[in-house]
């Protein structure tokens, strides 16, 4: 399979890999390793703003690249009840094949599983 330059760059050198712990950290997990795709996001927020993001992914290069990009790009931005960029926009940005749309939805599920409790906790 061929990958876009952006996909290859974030797949080969993903920043923000790992986990966070401590106050203000919310974790979201989606997917299943046995099914081939598993993603975890740790979001650390303060006053509605993302201070740090880390991710882990057992997944294909597209999923790793998109997760890494989201983690990198969202720091310093306001936490919302949606992905920082829509699934369709991410698909276009990373040239993700149509048959991999389900993997982008897993990324969205993992992100929202962390983001929504974080927003609700903040009240």
């Amino acid at each position, binding site marked *: *399979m061929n*990958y876009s330059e952006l996909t290859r760059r974030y*797949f*080969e*050198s*993903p920043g923000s*890999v790992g*986990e966070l712990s401590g106050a203000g950290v919310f974790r979201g997990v989606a*997917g*299943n*390793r*046995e099914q*081939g*795709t*598993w993603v*975890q996001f740790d979001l650390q927020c303060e006053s509605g703003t993302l201070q740090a993001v880390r991710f*882990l*992914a*057992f*997944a*294909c*290069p597209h999923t*790793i690249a998109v997760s890494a990009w989201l983690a990198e790009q969202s720091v310093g931005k306001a936490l919302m009840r949606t992905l920082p960029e829509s699934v369709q926009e991410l698909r276009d940005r990373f040239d993700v094949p149509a048959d991999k749309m389900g993997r982008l939805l897993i990324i969205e599920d993992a992100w929202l599983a962390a983001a929504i409790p974080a927003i609700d906790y903040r009240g």
Partner: protein
Amino acid sequence: MKPATQVSTAGMPVYLDHASTTPVDSRVAARMAEILNSETEFGNPASVSHDYGDIAHALVEQARGQVASAVGAASNEVIWTSGATEANNLAIFGVAQYYRERGRHIVTSRTEHKAVLDPCRELERRGWQVTYLVPDREGLLDPDQVAAALRQDTVLVSVMHVNNEIGVVQNIGALGAICARHGGIWLHVDAAQSLGKCPIDFAGLGVDLMSLSGHKVYGPKGVGALAVAQRKDGSRSARVQLAPLLFGGGQERGLRAGTLATHQVVGMGLAFELASSISSKETVRIAQLQRRLWQGLASIGGVLRNGSVSRSVPHVLNVSFEGVEGESLLAAVRPYLAVSTGSACNSALAEPSYVLRALGRSERLSESSLRFGLGRTTTTSDIDTAVAVLSREVGRLRDIAGARSGRVADAVAGT
């Protein structure tokens, strides 16, 4: 920042996919080029009315003898084809069609090449019955399994010699004896991967039909052969007969119509002659390289070897990496190493190797498996590069997956 990784001097990834295909031996390429450029060797080998045809015919027959000699067959037992896939099709459809009134049952195994499995599936669609035997977890068939699967209406047993994905060597001699004992059951063997890797003896193994390939043994692509036994010995009351697949010219004793490509068959003949003279020193060298590769990969941790260790050729090593996703693994190593996931013939399909699944590997492990094909061009440096690349990339992917070393099993089990 990533450490620098050695790439071969041509700027291409290290080639470790000799089980998929091999580079053409320079002596073979030179001889083929000679024929293509010749003003006297371009004739149609089937033309009997002039010297040009006679010269080409002589070249074809010399090559036939070289192939026959390399596999322990007689010259008149070798039928040229376009490759092992056509040879497999000719053997399976040829027997099925010719003996359709005697019986319509075939025995094969789940780990055969698609060039055997797909013809069998097609025959099922046409009303034949096929028994697909399941090998043990090392990829080996028990001859008793084969014997137990035979029926009154069985006409063919088709089992490969050296498996293309995991390198295990089946006990063909035992299968030959079983088929001969039952009488009227022909044994077809896909031996595309055998020559130059392990001993091969068409007559001695009691094989009736054997598929051969040119490009697996440093010969050209687009040419192969089917050895068709002509012997009649104590264990056989008749010779195997085939219905042809192609019509139009009667070449190859009516079994395979079409003008022969002289340069192709001459290339295959020379490649087989060269392969049959491979020294034991070279076999030892390959075995040492394979051992070095396996030891290096095993030291990464969470790496499983697929297929029998004791009954396999050293030219193929198939391993599964725990805790990494298959597509990412291949994408990570691709800039540095030319290797296969499963069989290259299947690599266009995004599905786990059916051979590894048949051995009991999970879907995930099957997907995260790589086949290394070692050959004449493989060096110690290639092996060390492969180990270094995989050590780094598997570690990196496990870090991304949160499944580093000791946490591999937990991570896999504990999603």
